[in-house]
């Protein structure tokens, strides 16, 4: 049972007592926990509906202890829009990978953000397609090796990796957009604050909120968990700067 921010090992009520299928060292589990803690702290669990993506977190509904919808690949923002418009009193969040949100679901996320749909998106950016076995994602770094760019991503042929936080921040509609990372304890604490703020903005019916979380995929990056966090820090952080990109209080940063 979760009690306070100092109870480090308590299980949040918003998480079920079950073992996840994520690979050892994968940070999906950490991110799940941050979302569950925010829901608990704000007392939202009983009126929250999550929307699971297609990707490694496709089974998120087995781990969260709240109502859930399982979306087609990339369409979570459309499902969330339909749900939230029908029941504005509910709290809705989508949980999406980079292939899901930045590739097949690019249209849905851009338009949902632009309409300022009052739901929260947790965007897990691990720069690769995890579930299908490590193919190139729109967020894969230049030169990064994946199974569909075995010689490294060639930006002359595939374009530059897409920075979603920046891209959505270019919209005129005010929203809350922050990029965080979960590769170290300090970063996890900062990420937790961001996730909580995202839900607070929704609960106050203020704006669309998205937290982009830099995440690891030790399995498909072909690294140990600790090498993965080092690689994230070395490489992803440089191309994907952390920070608050948009906030309804401050505007663009």
């Amino acid at each position: 049972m979760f009690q306070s921010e100092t109870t480090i090992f308590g299980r949040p009520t918003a998480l079920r007592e079950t073992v996840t299928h994520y690979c050892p060292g994968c940070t999906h589990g950490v991110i799940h926990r941050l979302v569950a803690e925010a829901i608990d702290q704000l007392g939202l669990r009983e009126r929250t509906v999550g929307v699971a993506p297609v990707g490694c977190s496709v089974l998120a509904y087995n781990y969260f202890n709240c109502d859930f919808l399982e979306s087609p690949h990339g369409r979570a923002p459309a499902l969330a829009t339909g749900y939230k418009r029908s029941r504005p009193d509910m709290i809705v969040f989508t949980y999406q990978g980079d292939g899901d949100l930045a590739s097949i679901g690019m249209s849905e996320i851009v338009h949902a953000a632009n309409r300022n749909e009052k739901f929260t998106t947790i965007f897990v950016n691990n720069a690769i397609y995890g579930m299908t076995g490590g193919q190139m994602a729109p967020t894969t770094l230049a030169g990064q090796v994946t199974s569909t760019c075995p010689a490294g991503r060639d930006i002359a042929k595939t374009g530059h990796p897409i920075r979603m936080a920046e891209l959505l921040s270019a919209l005129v509609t005010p929203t809350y957009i922050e990029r965080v990372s979960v590769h170290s304890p300090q970063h996890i604490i900062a990420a937790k604050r961001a996730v909580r703020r995202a839900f607070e903005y929704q609960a106050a019916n203020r704006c669309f909120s998205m937290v982009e979380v830099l995440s690891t995929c030790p399995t498909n990056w072909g690294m140990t968990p600790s090498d993965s966090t080092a690689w994230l820090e070395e490489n992803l952080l440089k191309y994907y700067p952390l920070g608050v990109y948009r906030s309804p209080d401050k505007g663009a940063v």
Partner: protein
Amino acid sequence: MAKILMKGNEAIAEAAIRAGSLVYFCYPITPQTEVAEYMAKRMPEVGGVFLQAESEIAVGNMLFGASSSGRRVFTSSSSPGISLMQEAISYMAGAQLPCVILNIMRGGPGLGGILPAQSDYLQATKGGGHGDYRVLVLAPSSVQEAVDLTMLGFHLADKYRNPVMIIGDGMIGQMMEPVEFPEKYEEPELPPKDWAATGAKGRPPIVIKSLHLDPYVLEDNSIVLDKKYRQMKRDEPRYELYKVSPGNRILIVSYGTMARICQTVIDELETEGISVGLFRPITVFPYPEEALRKEANKKNIESILTVEMSMGQMLEDVERIVQGARPIKFFGRTGGIVPTPDEVKEQIKKMIRSDTAANSRKKRG
């Protein structure tokens, strides 16, 4: 309530509202955009949800989300737009979510044209999206019937927890006819929507999904769906007969507004002393198979004529159902061309001439 003159598209929109659907998503496409325009005006008046989405892909998935919340949800589109919704329709069928989708069909394939056609019959009745699933498909032939079937559609969607499609062609959407709405919309009681995701308060979480990674569980799910489709086949077939009598030599099979044109043909032929009957399916899934077989097998029927605004899509069902018991001829125009009564009449006279010649050859031989 007095009859009022309404355009088909607007009458259907009003019927959806009166059936209690206060959630509508859309993306404009001819020839049904009036539904969206009507909803844009009416939904704020009735406290409903109106949203113009970024695409039909999004519309379909917004329906998915909204239906999960337990609301009655509605959208309208036309052929290319319906193709884009097939993803969500398959997912909704898999997750057993009700919704009503109106397809005011236009000519295809591809971008095709904007004029009336019936060329989405196979897509509507045989799946359209991926997987072992069916949607209930209703085919009105007048504006009044479109109103009635739209209301019935919401009931059937909830009763079976399944997507329902109303298929009309561009004509039914665009024509104006007098319609009457029931004073108060009444329908048989339905079980409570205890499957809806409304927040896990005082109960375990509800998950609405179509994913079943265990093949045995997925097969079981398909068996559950199949049982539902069988029940539909047993309980929901609807059809109408027009001037069916022992004097008929030919039976026309036709649906939607095309069937109405065939009624004119039948009336005109009657004055010339030629007796033809019409079998009009109202539900095209489930198809009224038994009824058609019975009519087709009547002794007086020498041949069947299937008339469609397509290259012969329902024809495949008619052939399957009649199973060679009678010769079947087909007459169709497509691309947005509506067959004239004279064209259909000529086809029937040709059939009678060749039947008569064949009969007299048989007698001589």
